[in-house]
């Protein structure tokens, strides 16, 4: 089947040429045409497009800001109604050094834990028969002083 198909084609190079030519045709030639910016509305699309990206994220920003303020106000009112003290400016931040120290401590703590202990003893007596290939004497770069 394959052999039959191959015989239909002229040669291997002809096949390659066809593939390369078709890909080149699809992609076209490189040119320099500044006028295309206006002709194809490229400038307009860019300006409007960039503006819309900004608008979308600006709206999202405004929403989050409003949501945060609303939530804080509600929490404040709830606390006032309960008669509890309000600490809206409580700083919950932790300095980087403290975070690093906590991380280190946790890491050390978990590293020293052994949830499952292996009960299999793995100590084996190994015989080391003499071999000139591993002999220390032959491995010395300098002969010992006699």
């Amino acid at each position: 089947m394959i052999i039959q198909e191959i015989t239909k084609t002229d040669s291997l190079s002809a096949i390659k040429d066809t593939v390369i030519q078709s890909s080149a045709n699809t992609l076209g030639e490189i040119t320099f045409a500044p006028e295309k910016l206006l002709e194809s509305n490229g400038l307009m699309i860019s300006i409007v497009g960039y503006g819309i990206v900004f608008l979308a994220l600006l709206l999202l920003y405004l929403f989050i800001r409003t949501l945060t303020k609303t939530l804080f106000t509600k929490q404040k009112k709830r606390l006032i109604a309960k008669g509890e003290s309000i600490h809206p400016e409580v700083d919950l931040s932790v300095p980087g050094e403290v975070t690093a120290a906590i991380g280190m401590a946790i890491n050390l703590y978990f590293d020293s834990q052994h949830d499952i202990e292996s009960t299999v003893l793995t100590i084996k007596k190994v015989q080391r028969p003499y071999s000139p290939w591993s002999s220390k004497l032959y491995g010395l770069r300098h002969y010992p002083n006699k």
Partner: protein
Amino acid sequence: MDGVTQFLRFTSFANFTWGHLVMLAIGCLFIFLAIKKEYEPLLLIPIGFGILIGNIPFFENVGLQIGIYEEGSVLNYLYFGVTKGIYPPLIFLGIGAMTDFSALLSNPKLMLLGAAAQVGIFLTFMAALVLGFTQEQAAAIGIIGGADGPTAIFLSSRLAPELIGAIAIAAYSYMALVPVIQPPIIKLLTSKEERVIRMKPPRSVSKLEKILFPIVGLLLTTFISPGALPLLGMLFFGNLLKESGVTKRLSDTASKAMIDIVTILLGLTVGASTQATTFLTPQSILIFVLGAVSFAIATAGGVIFAKVMNLFLKGDERINPMIGAAGVSAVPDSARVVQSLGLKEDSSNYLLMHAMAPNVSGVIGSAVAAGILMGFLLKAV
């Protein structure tokens, strides 16, 4: 004897071109960078190996059904997910399930940095138009500036499928090269005083805020840019799975097993799509150059906008302009770059959390930009 000749004609040696050698070398370079330099190994290993697979020369167009562009081949079936834009939304689902938007919610003004960095997309779009690409091709090339591989693949699959291989490779290459490309631009545009600015630590964010954000985020962004629905829909869905706290199993699958499977398939097929016979053209090289320019402009755009914002901010409200560079959506690489640059300037100034805000906002911004470009240009297709 005829049989032997026939066999020899089918071997890779008989079909070998210098283009294949170049591509094989690029594949090996990607693998080297991934292993030795640890530049985005999760992406570069599949892509690099995919390049090797895609550039083993074979006798094309004779019904062997082995090449990625040959209908019926296994690789062609897997590549279907790329050409039809199936993989990118699935990747976004995983990203959503992995992303913590707390940094953004605690300081929402940083979201504007994610918008500012998208300037690279639109400037490169114009540059590509001037260089003779069609509107659709120019849009697909411009999106490389978003530094978002899935978005670039998604948009090019819709607007310029013929460029998908080159665009995907360029986008992922620049994402992997974030630690090389961004630092010089950031240093060039900022002074020493600006680089050591300490930002107010982020506040704690309530669960209600975290749950509301994906719902409102979806509604607001996709009503403006419906073209981004497949990407943003999945992103926010994944995030709701995570933040709701009641779908841990689904969130775990989306953020671990599923995103890993899709990353493997996407990386491998994108790499294999760089078959030398169709990939090595002057246009591909031009796309690489435009992609680099786009990425550099996007980085600069974010940093400059952060500096402009500082003109209106006082005291501890001021932002470190370096985090503007994280407005490109290479998550979390650009944020990590900013963190390491910050630590170099001041060993106790941790910027990672602050930089994550524009970084995740950049993901939303680039998807919105892709949707807008689709909205403008799909009519003409």
